[in-house]
């Protein structure tokens, strides 16, 4: 400051105003240069997809691509549903449903993990570090919970896609989706 002991003068004010205006201008001008890295309108237009799951057999999983990630659609057998229902949420490492269609505080009951119990729709991204878990089937079991096993760091998921063992902190995410027909699902 020119003379720190006195009040700012009119001249100081002018310089401060000029400097402030220039700084604001540079700050505003930076926005287009930052925003250009966000997803484009073409990417956003692909953010919502509609899939037909009629061909999926009970016990089978089909992987779709949604927003650049694998999307697991699993048609669960009554046995798998029963196994998932048998576990009280209080025993789970992550007690929250992680279902984008429900509130953030919904508990991780099996009912809260799907819209129709037969159809489990989860994002196939391990909540540890983003690998794609491998599906477990009676013919080729993966892990000891019948759901999925992530081979990167050994996270094990159950038949409701909930984390049971290993380093992953959260259950597999359930994306926003809705049934637009008996076997038609709109995701995103």
């Amino acid at each position, binding site marked *: *400051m*020119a*003379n720190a002991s006195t009040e700012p003068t009119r*001249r100081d004010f*002018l*310089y*401060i105003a000029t400097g402030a*205006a220039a700084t604001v201008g540079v700050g505003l001008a930076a926005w287009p240069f930052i925003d250009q890295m966000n997803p484009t309108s073409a990417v956003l237009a692909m953010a919502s997809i509609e899939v037909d799951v009629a*061909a999926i057999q009970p016990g089978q999983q089909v992987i779709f691509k949604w927003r650049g990630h694998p999307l697991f659609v699993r048609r669960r057998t009554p046995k798998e549903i029963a196994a998932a229902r048998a576990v009280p949420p209080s025993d789970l490492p992550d007690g929250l449903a992680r279902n984008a269609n429900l509130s953030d505080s919904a508990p991780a009951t099996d009912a809260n993990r799907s819209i129709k119990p037969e159809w489990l729709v989860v994002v196939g991204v391990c909540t540890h570090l983003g690998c794609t878990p491998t599906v477990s089937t009676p013919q080729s079991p993966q892990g000891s919970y019948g759901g999925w096993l992530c081979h990167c760091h050994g996270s094990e998921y159950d038949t409701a896609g909930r984390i049971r063992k290993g380093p992953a902190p959260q259950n597999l995410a359930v994306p926003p989706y809705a049934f637009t027909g008996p076997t038609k699902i709109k995701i995103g």
Partner: protein
Amino acid sequence: MKTVWPLLAVLALAVPSSAEDLTQPLAPQTQAWSFNGITGTYDRGALQRGFQVYKEVCAACHSLNMVAFHDLAAPGGPGFTEAQAKVIAATYKIPAEPDDKGDIFDEKGNRLTRPGVLADHFPPPFANEQAARASNGGALPPDLSLIVKARQGGPDYVYSILTGFNQNPPHGFTIQNGKYYNPYFAGRNISMPPPLSQGSVSFSDGTPATVANEAKAVVTFLAWTSEPQLEARHRIGLQVLAFLVLVAGLLFLSYRKVWHGKPEDEGVVHDLPGSPTEKAPVGDPDTLSGG
């Protein structure tokens, strides 16, 4: 040296000109466009009518490769709602992805298709350039995505071409076989048959479907496909330039203050070069910067 200036003046007055030539195109007719000027915006009604003209007339031969269905609902565009754009998209047949057996053709050899979705682009009328030429007497109908920016004269030129078919060729002018007379087109022989006529389309908003109205609407639509961000550009431009004027004003005052510092302000004398003063401005930058 003094003799050089009059010579230059004479040269400057001379105007380039060329002989009248029937193969030279006429200058496009100037139209008043709603999107001209620094506050110009697209006329929504014209955009929607123009889309209809494109869809029902132009799309038979011309592709619109760069435009996606979701663009129809984008801000600054024709103003369709997302639901309307979805319905429009679904009326188009898009070449389908390979089915479960890996086929892209059905048993009869027809290309499998699916209804369009918002992320799809307008499908081209012809599978490839050769097919397009084969159906159009050897001429290639250009893609229309950028047509207004890709022609000298812009919207006026496209409008003039569309409305320029009704004129009789001058005496002695030969129209080539399979071509049409259009005085606004280079060479005046154009391969495109007159695309618009009275009642080519029927506008649901009651606008009379005259050739002029149809052309005006479709050119507005094509101006938008060429420059879909025009409205944002005009709006942001005003804000940016107004802000810059403000900064320029502040900087000018600071500039004057720095160079014309008055003794009573800070007790420091800094004069504009040229001011009569005994004291030369020997600067202590800390004092001068004011901060």
